[in-house]
């Protein structure tokens, strides 16, 4: 057994050249074979790649899909994102627990099935959904959940759960998934026809500086949400002296409520890869990496095939399209369940084989990124747009959208509406128009850009989606008037607490404290001063946290405070002097009462 382990670990490490920078691949490989990465396996890996056990452990314990302890042969990860919760998560979780005879987080006694929960898996438009190993199951109901368990019990083969396949490429033999694209509106940038190689051909006809100038002229801004000018980023990278540069594609679409990159990768992979190749040419890189979130592992075989086709067609590899000095290839780096890796420096850390801790900035990735070389990290949608720009020209692109935010935006619309799905809309569209397109059901609030932005009430529905007004990475979550905004804010805070990398104090500790405070208010124990304290603490966390996660995490709370303040003020009241509302004597003595068999005289 021990020998078997050593042999397999050796084989996996060898596959990655015993390179500790490929740690993610190695540990994923080991887990794939043994269901976990045991202490013995970590020792072996450390020895083989010239690292230390604690370094391996540090990586393994960071990602929620990796496990030190054996898990079931099948792991069900039920998505507990807010939209799933709205669509019946509790009942589905209950049904699964009952059918399996275990509670959330446990494994059946025969070691066959583990039931656990996971944050947003990018299926908000078909929630509740779950990952069964790599297989996605969608539109769950308690009945469907029960059937699913019964079937799994029989064959323990998640792939057999897919009896009907979704739309578009989901019927591709390498995908074969029940997931649906739900493309509700096709725009000219992403969902127009695309012939592989054409944009690249136009690109290679220019020199790299001209390519960058084109992108700059298009005024394309990063589609991940932050909106940094793409052309400028490329230029900074190109101008930083170095022997090597890298192109990284951020396909770690983890913002709750976002799923448009999944659709792009399913339907427009060639366009995305072409955009990366163009970027490689522009900045002078020969390597591209797609950092694909673990939740989208089911797309990987298909994406590998697309890459393979491109290599075969001279669109990747050496001397691309006959260009004598342009060599470029792309590999896929799998993630393993860590929202923070969507932050570009955390993504780089993960690609380098480390924990997904964000890095200190400055220096910024275009100056010093992957393996300390100049690196651009762009969103899937940005690369897709770049490819189209090279095909159609900057003026064409610039003509779309609003005055200051050019082009189109892919929105992932979900929540309380009749038509959830992906919408390609021009920038400048108002939130109300989107609500109408989606046939929203009595909307009381919308979260544009996911929980790292503020939740807006009807008085802000006339706002426009663009970088000057309502900036977004793509999530557009609709809540009807009956939804409890405070409970939503509290749940999102839980999400950030779980997903914080833990590096810096305000994010690691402050969020827990903020959560306790919110909980106090939501449970009716709050005083007016608690609301001021919530604001103060939120401000401290936002101001002093190192990366975007901490800087955004209090937003759900602040948003609820600012846009729905009456909800909070109704819950708090001044207390009379005496015991604090948060101190519950009856709970504090309950153990003692049980032990000594008499009641407290003071309760």
């Amino acid at each position: 057994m021990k020998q078997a382990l050593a042999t397999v670990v050796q084989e996996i490490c060898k596959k990655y050249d015993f390179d500790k920078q490929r740690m993610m691949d190695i540990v994923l490989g080991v887990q794939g074979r043994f269901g976990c990465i045991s202490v013995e396996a970590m020792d072996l890996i450390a020895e083989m790649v010239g690292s230390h056990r604690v370094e391996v452990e540090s990586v393994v314990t960071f990602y929620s899909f990796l496990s030190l302890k054996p898990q079931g042969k099948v792991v069900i990860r039920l998505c507990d994102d807010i939209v799933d919760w709205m669509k019946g998560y509790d009942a589905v979780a209950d049904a699964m627990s009952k059918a399996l005879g275990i509670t959330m987080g446990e494994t059946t006694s025969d070691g066959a099935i583990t039931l656990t929960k996971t944050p947003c898996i990018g299926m908000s438009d078909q929630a509740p959904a779950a990952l069964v190993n790599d297989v996605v199951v969608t539109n769950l109901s308690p009945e469907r959940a029960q059937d699913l368990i019964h079937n799994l019990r029989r064959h323990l083969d998640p792939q057999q759960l897919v009896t009907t396949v979704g739309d578009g490429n989901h019927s591709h033999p390498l995908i074969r998934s029940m997931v649906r694209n739900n493309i509700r509106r096709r725009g000219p940038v992403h969902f127009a026809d695309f012939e592989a190689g054409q944009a690249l051909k136009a690109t290679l006809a220019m020199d790299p500086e001209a390519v960058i100038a084109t992108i700059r002229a298009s005024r394309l801004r990063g589609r991940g949400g932050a909106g940094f000018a793409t052309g400028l980023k490329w230029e900074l990278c190109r101008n930083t002296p170095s022997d090597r540069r890298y192109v990284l594609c951020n396909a770690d679409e983890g913002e709750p409520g976002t799923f448009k990159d999944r659709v792009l990768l399913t339907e427009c992979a060639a366009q995305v890869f072409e955009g990366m190749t163009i970027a490689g040419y522009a900045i002078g890189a020969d390597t591209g990496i797609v950092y694909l979130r673990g939740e989208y592992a089911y797309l990987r075989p298909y994406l590998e095939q697309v890459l393979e086709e491109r290599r075969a067609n001279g669109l990747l590899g050496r001397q691309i399209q006959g260009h004598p000095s342009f060599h470029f290839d792309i590999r896929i780096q799998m993630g393993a369940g860590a929202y923070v890796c969507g932050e570009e420096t955390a993504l780089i850390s993960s690609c380098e084989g480390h924990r997904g801790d964000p890095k200190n900035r400055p220096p910024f990735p275009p100056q010093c990124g992957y393996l300390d070389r100049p690196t651009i990290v762009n969103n899937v949608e940005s690369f897709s747009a770049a490819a189209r720009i090279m095909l159609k020209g900057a003026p064409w692109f610039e003509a779309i959208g609003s005055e200051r935010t050019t082009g189109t935006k892919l929105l992932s619309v979900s929540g309380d509406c009749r038509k959830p799905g992906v919408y390609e809309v021009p920038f400048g569209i108002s939130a109300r128009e989107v609500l109408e397109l989606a046939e929203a059901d009595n909307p009381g609030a919308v979260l544009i850009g996911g929980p790292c932005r503020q939740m807006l009430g009807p008085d802000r529905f006339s706002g426009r989606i663009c970088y000057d007004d309502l900036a977004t990475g793509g999530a557009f979550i609709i809540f009807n008037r009956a939804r409890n905004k405070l409970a939503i804010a509290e749940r999102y805070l839980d999400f950030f607490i779980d997903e914080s990398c833990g590096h810096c104090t305000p994010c690691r500790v402050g969020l827990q404290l903020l959560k306790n405070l919110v909980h106090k208010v939501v449970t009716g124990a709050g005083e007016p001063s608690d609301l001021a304290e919530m604001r103060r603490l939120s401000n401290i966390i936002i101001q002093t946290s190192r990366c975007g996660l901490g800087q955004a995490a209090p937003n759900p709370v602040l948003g609820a405070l600012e846009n729905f303040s009456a909800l909070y003020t109704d819950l708090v009241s001044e207390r009379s002097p005496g015991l604090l509302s948060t101190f519950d004597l009856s709970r504090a003595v309950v153990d003692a009462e049980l032990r000594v068999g008499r009641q407290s005289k003071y309760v």
Partner: protein
Amino acid sequence: MKHIEFTIDGKTMTAKPGQTILKAAEAHGVYIPHLCAYKDLIPHGSCRVCSVRCNGRIQAACVQTVSEGMIVENDTPEIHEFRKAILDMLFVEGNHFCMFCEKSGQCELQALAYRFGITAPQFPLLEPERELDMSHPDVYLDHNRCILCGRCVRVSQDLDNKNCFQFVGRGHRKRLKVNGEALAETDLRVTDAVVASCPVGALMKKRVGYAIPIGERHFDQQPIGHAIEEKNS
């Protein structure tokens, strides 16, 4: 080498290119409170105690390099409030029993709290369950007191050329971990530089205890940072 001019709290000073705000300030006798920054280790930027307002934005002074004309605010009510809150967060996150901690009087976390006049934590205690690793013959590790500053991680790697420590887990489950099941399994030696690097009482030499009498301990007489500020006076 060209010098860069910048200001801290309105006072003009100079820095070498690439120098961090923290280092440049210290060179001019301005103390910027900090915890995770240590000697010449690569800055960690994790504790955020050294947060300053820098050209309008909050930045960690241990990480941020000085640029020409930079305006740094260090000694302002706002920054004080942030720092006090962060110190309190570190206190409530662990189990800090100053009254019997042998690091008391020499502890940088405590000394900073003294400097900021903190009389009680402003947040409720989280009281986590933490472990005490006494397995090593000469050194012990009390996780109750660990503030995750990562000094030991970096000193072990960079100065001792070992790899005795690393962080495991993430978020509020993030912990310091030793390379092996317990400290005794590591190649840590009591003479390693790492043993003296802990700012709190988490990583300590065994059987030393309270050898320094009360009154003679590092921060008994003068606040932390005094040595730096003295240079300026």
